């Protein structure tokens, strides 16, 4: 390569780098009316949720629709749903990082933030669901005057450890990834407040070779640690159910089944968030059909696993010869909660079959629609597993039918608002794409743009 072509190529790269900076930092511009309107809606819904929760604490958990034997209901459904959402983030950022899957670059930041906020949302529900939330600290192992410790045999204590570890590690992972990009924002900040903010948050990052060297190592190890963690967290969550003797819960398939389901729902949520975000911020050059196609394939893969797990559940129930298992699964498909089960089967197994078609996989519209259905389906999956199994347990005297109340619906809606509030704040204050990594591995469209500049 002659010096001249090299220089031309270098100039082209710099031009593209500048464009990356410009495009991504553009998302941080002063929020517009649309953003403010969305925020207003979100805060209102959140407010209603908070009121519902305060009312529930004051009056008692009975204001929710619990109907024994359904002692866990929508709150735990929400909990598992949000933990599930949290999973694809770390999967995309950590596992795909280790596998060097290039398409992750464009979407990993969004999915990581989604992870952190989803864990923050999920973490609320075990508390909301407690009968005496003001004694939640009984679950924390610390020396106390009662000389009592938590029971480490309880999957709920494992949950406490798993969720807090996961929250910590994924926050660390998100933050470490953000440091170089915050430095970019710092260097281009226009207002004093933002400059201050980003200076503090970037911790004085300069992108020197030494910093990058340790940074790369640490990032790799964090990815390495996060990978088993992401698998373990949803396994632990699944053990909340699998360790119980409830027919419909007590199953060895639960851990892999839950992990696959979590990734499934997480990828769907990524798509749900990315599609409007790309449009709103004009990031078409960064996220394109290539990414969508890859995400769709991941969705299809996990959908197939989930589908398989559903079928296996029925098969094991039949093959086990256990009357209780058989009764629960018969009831699941044809009983009082069949409506919920069939929503779940349609959304999670039937509708994603459309992803076998490339035209669907690369269609923004259809992918968005499918992702919404998958989200819905996965919420109902947890609803069915938790509520239907409990409603049809060993004791026929105690079979019953649960319906939620406004309090549960308000709190569920509030949890979405809580999640979206953080997400909206994030996209306006921190770079929602990995600038440094985008520069390193240009997305296809930018690569083509670079080549065009070089040719010119």
């Amino acid at each position, binding site marked *: 390569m002659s010096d001249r072509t090299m220089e031309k190529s270098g100039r082209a790269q710099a031009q593209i780098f500048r464009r990356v900076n410009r495009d991504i930092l553009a998302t941080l511009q002063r929020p517009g009316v649309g953003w403010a309107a969305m925020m207003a809606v979100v805060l209102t819904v959140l407010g209603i949720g908070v009121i519902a929760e305060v009312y529930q604490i004051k009056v008692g958990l009975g204001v929710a629709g619990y109907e024994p034997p359904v002692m866990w209901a929508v709150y735990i459904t929400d909990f598992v749903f949000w933990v599930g959402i949290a999973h694809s983030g770390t999967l995309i950022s950590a596992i795909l990082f280790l596998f060097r899957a290039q398409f992750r670059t464009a979407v990993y930041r969004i999915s990581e933030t989604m992870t952190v906020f989803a864990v923050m949302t999920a973490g609320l529900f075990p508390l909301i669901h407690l009968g005496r939330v003001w004694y939640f600290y009984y679950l924390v192992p610390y020396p106390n005057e009662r000389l009592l410790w938590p029971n480490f045999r309880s999957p709920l204590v494992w949950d406490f450890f798993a969720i807090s*570890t996961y929250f910590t590690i994924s926050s660390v992972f998100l933050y470490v990834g953000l440091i*170089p990009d915050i430095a970019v924002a710092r260097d281009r900040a226009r207002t004093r407040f933002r400059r201050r903010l980003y200076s503090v948050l970037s911790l*004085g990052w300069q992108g*020197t070779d030494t*910093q990058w*060297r340790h940074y790369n190592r640490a990032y790799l190890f964090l990815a390495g640690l996060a990978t088993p963690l992401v698998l373990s967290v949803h396994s632990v969550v699944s053990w909340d159910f699998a360790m119980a003797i409830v027919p419909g819960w007590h199953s060895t398939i639960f851990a892999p089944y839950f992990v696959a389901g979590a990734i499934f729902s997480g990828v769907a949520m990524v798509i749900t968030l990315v599609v409007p975000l790309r449009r709103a911020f004009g990031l078409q050059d960064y996220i394109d059909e290539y990414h969508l196609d890859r995400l769709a394939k991941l969705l299809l893969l996990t959908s197939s696993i989930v589908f398989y797990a559903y079928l296996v559940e029925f098969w094991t129930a039949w093959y086990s010869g256990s009357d209780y298992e058989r009764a629960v699964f018969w009831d699941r498909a044809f009983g009082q909660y069949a409506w919920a089960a069939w929503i779940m089967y349609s959304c999670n197994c039937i509708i994603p079959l459309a992803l076998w078609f490339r035209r669907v996989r690369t269609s923004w519209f259809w992918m968005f629609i499918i992702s919404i259905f998958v989200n819905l389906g996965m919420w109902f999956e947890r609803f069915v597993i938790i509520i239907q199994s409990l409603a049809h347990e060993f004791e026929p005297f105690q079979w019953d039918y649960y319906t939620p109340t406004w309090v549960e619906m308000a709190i569920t809606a509030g949890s979405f608002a809580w999640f979206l509030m953080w997400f909206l704040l994030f996209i306006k204050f921190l770079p929602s794409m990995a600038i440094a990594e985008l520069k390193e591995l240009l997305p296809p469209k930018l690569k083509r743009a670079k080549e065009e500049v070089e040719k010119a």
Partner: protein
Amino acid sequence: MSAELLERGVRGAFYTLEEAAHAVDVLEENGFAQSDITVFSPIPTAEVEEHFVRPRSPVRYMTLTGGILGCITGFALTYWTFFAWPHHVGGKPVSSFPVAVVIMFELTVLLGGLFSLAAVFIFSRIPALTMKPGYHPRFSEDLFGVFVHTSEEEGKRSASRVLDGLGALEVRDEPA
């Protein structure tokens, strides 16, 4: 280039990481110690690392330490509480290793991760209150910087010559 900066060294800027890495090689050939050369990069610098003969990043040891510590803590915590006030539950034995494994695993990951974070902070010298000399905001944007720490006039001349010879750009604040 400000006078203050010039007192501490010489800076050159390049369009590509390859050029910057090449400059490092040439500077070394010209007798500059690796420890005196800093490369600023807007992108992760996996390639550049090959040009430096620097010890392997010690982050790994911190991660390992954190992990082992977490594992031990997990075991100690569970077993201590088993016997601190033994309660019989579900007809199971008072101590139960499989239970400890879960806690051990979680704490391994937790402390491993936190120690890794600490390692980045410690070894990358962040949070940093002052900026390293030779930095320019465009190094977080589109250019790669090479800064040679030298206070001697001759060194400065030599470094400038080398960098100019390699086609380094004078860094200007260009509008983004």
